[in-house]
């Protein structure tokens, strides 16, 4: 294998490349579909419209949160605060809504809280150079405690009936809003990650931060924006969740950060950075919520959910590692 061999660039067809690039995600999608077909055979209800709608509705907030987590994970970071930010921004938003009787004010405050906390995370990670795990762990604790303080420990019921429309309304006749949001977030994130220069910066930063910096990428700004996006999307998720239940608990987001991290990783993101796709995060989210749903439908004790999800995480990440070895995606 001398180096004087003539220059060859193998040009595979677009389809082939696409399949190679999304091998893991496609595999997960197949598993998801197969799982639902089997569930349908056993229960007879899994593929009914009402069940699918339920699962999608329950998935919407997690999907949005996972997309925020995804960008952070691709930079090589982690955001443990999203669950607590979900609680905090949702609670702030609803309290303001109740106090002012203005949905707009509530929404703006919720989004503002999410953005602010995201910026704090981002600045501490990017500028102060603290470990993302520590920064967002601290934010997690602080946000959870602040939620309880401002709410006095009580859950709040949303009395403004119009707020229901945020989740269940039909901007497009015949299509529920949460469906619209899900499509929008997946498409936007896909475009952001694949088609924009900023998206390529996110991957580059996660792949090799020093090399990124030295080739002129503003890595600090990239990271701050990613953490901010994560905070912002947690707030969006919280509003969607609040609108669905018309109620917020002080602990509504507890544990969601782990679901979001798991969803991103099931979909092929790597905690060492540089890997992950919007499509993968979508499949990861649906797979998790699908497992919940399956366990419900089968009438199995819901205590089993964590065990099954845990096994799915291990298996999918393992498969990703093995597949990565062959596709030369590895470091």
């Amino acid at each position, binding site marked *: *294998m*001398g*180096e*004087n*061999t*003539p*220059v*060859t*660039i*193998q*040009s*595979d067809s677009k389809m082939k*490349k696409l399949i*190679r*690039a999304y091998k893991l995600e496609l595999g997960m999608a197949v598993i998801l579909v197969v799982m639902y077909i089997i569930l349908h055979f056993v229960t007879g209800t899994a593929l009914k419209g009402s069940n699918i709608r339920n699962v999608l509705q329950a998935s919407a907030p997690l999907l949005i949160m996972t997309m925020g987590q995804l960008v952070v994970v691709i930079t090589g970071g982690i955001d443990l605060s999203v669950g607590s930010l979900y609680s905090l921004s949702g609670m702030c938003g609803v309290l303001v809504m109740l106090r002012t009787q203005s949905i707009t004010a509530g929404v703006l405050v919720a989004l503002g809280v999410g953005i602010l906390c995201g910026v704090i995370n981002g600045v501490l990670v990017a500028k102060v150079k603290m470990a993302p795990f520590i920064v967002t762990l601290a934010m997690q604790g602080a946000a959870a405690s602040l939620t309880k303080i401002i709410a006095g420990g009580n859950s709040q019921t949303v009395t403004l009936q119009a707020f229901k429309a945020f989740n269940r309304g039909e901007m497009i006749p015949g299509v529920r809003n949460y469906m619209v949001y899900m499509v929008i977030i997946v498409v936007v994130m896909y475009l952001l990650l*694949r*088609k*924009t*220069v*900023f*998206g*390529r910066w996110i*991957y*580059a930063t996660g*792949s*090799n931060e*020093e*090399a*990124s*910096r*030295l*080739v*002129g*990428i*503003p890595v600090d700004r990239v990271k701050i924006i990613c953490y901010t996006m994560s905070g912002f999307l947690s707030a969006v998720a919280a509003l969607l969740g609040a609108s669905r239940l018309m109620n917020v608990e002080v602990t509504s987001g507890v544990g969601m950060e782990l679901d979001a991290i798991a969803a991103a990783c099931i979909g092929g993101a790597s905690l060492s950075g*540089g*890997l992950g796709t919007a499509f993968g995060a979508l499949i990861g989210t649906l797979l998790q919520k699908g497992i919940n749903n399956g366990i419900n439908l089968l009438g199995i004790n819901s205590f089993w959910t964590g065990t099954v999800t845990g096994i799915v995480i291990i298996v999918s990440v393992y498969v990703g590692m093995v597949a990565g070895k062959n596709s*030369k*995606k*590895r*470091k």
Partner: protein
Amino acid sequence: MTETKAPILELKHIMKAYDANVALKDAGLTVYPGEIHALMGANGAGKSTMIKIIAGAHKPNEGEIILNGEAVTFNNPKDALRKGVAVVYQELSLVPHLTVSENIALSADSVNKKGRYDWAESDRLASAALKRLGRAGEGIGVRDIVGNLRADQMQMIEIARAIGQDASIILLDEPTSSLNFEETENLFAVIRELVKQDIAIIFVSHRMNEIREICDRISILRDGILVVDGRPMSQISDDDIVTEMLGEKLESEKVEKTPLEEIDKRQPLLTFGFEGGIQDYVIHEGEIIGLAGLAGSGRSSVLRAIWGGSLRDDMHFEYMGEEFKPTKPSKSLGSKMAYVGEDRAISGLFFGQPILETIIMGHRNLGRKMIVNNRHEQDVFRDVIRKIQIKIPAEDCSPSALSGGNQQKLLFGRWIIDDAKLILLDEPTRGVDVRTKEEIYQRIRTMAAENNAGVLMVSSELNELELLCDRVIVMRDGKGENVLSGDEITEENMMRYIAHAEGT
């Protein structure tokens, strides 16, 4: 001198294939105790496979390994080490946060006293092993933290660990690639000391002058075949070595340099100087200037300061006739500069991403566009790949699928898209084989001659500076010290000035 002894290690007719890919066809090696044996080969000749087989990390498909006259198999690296064969890789396997003592003795059985770590025994083992390294090892204390040591001392710790476990054969894989001139000499002193104790050293390197300096005999692999089998160094010329490695004569172009008077008439491109420095230095269009000096003399930091990678407030610059204040890489990038960093894995390559990303990123950032133009990037990418003449397995593979030489060429490819005016190169040929070196030299000359770019390069390989540079600045304590130009640029001269610079 060693011929009277029996060989300590013989590898015969080694064949090794990975799936359909034959890495070694008929490789071999015969090593005698107390000799320093060079193992050379171009990229892709099967050298790394050979190293892995000697280390016990891979098993050959065919062929035999004979150790002290007995046929053996190495089941794994630990097994090989137990039988006396140690390999010190380029990427050291030390635990930086632990002490020298622990790093040397950690895996010895005698320090494990029913689960308790026996520090006294550990220190004893470590100091005994260090003592065998001779004088160069004297500066190392057993309780020093390894992470605080110099690069050559870390190499020594690794070697000490090997001899602490009674290794009789030590393979050093490119041991000097991250060492400076002085550190290399220290390491060589250690190697000579070990040879006196009848330890056999297998020395893998691309650096001809080092092989010449320290090795007794040489074996060369080409395309998986042993083509030179332990020939004494005195019976082989540098040209022979290159010819044997490549299978043909390398047309090493001895290019006439442009006369200095000619260069001085051209537009000055960059002027730089140091606070309290003796003089300012000028790079003209088409001029190649080298920075020589010991590691830590500030060579790399000058490049990084111009590039904006890490700032130096004791330097001032004038670029294209105007005062220039570097702030960040994107500014320098936008000012038509280019930079290839010292360690490509850290400062250049995007592992895990398609090769295109590594090549295109500078061009993309220069474009200041929001949206990626896929078709344009593909075209540019293919054009670059064609120009830098590398073979890639697939368009979407990661740089990790390429050899070191090709990875380095990727980083040069990055800067031929938009003609840079000032090119900053930090150790541009580290760890690449002779042929790739020649190509890189050619590339550097082309950038200077055809694009009229100025080049500022740092290199520890003085022959490289002699070959390419119009002027060489010898650095010391972060500042420029002497300037050599024209015929003064010889290895001997540079060496003398560097040594002089060190002598204070």
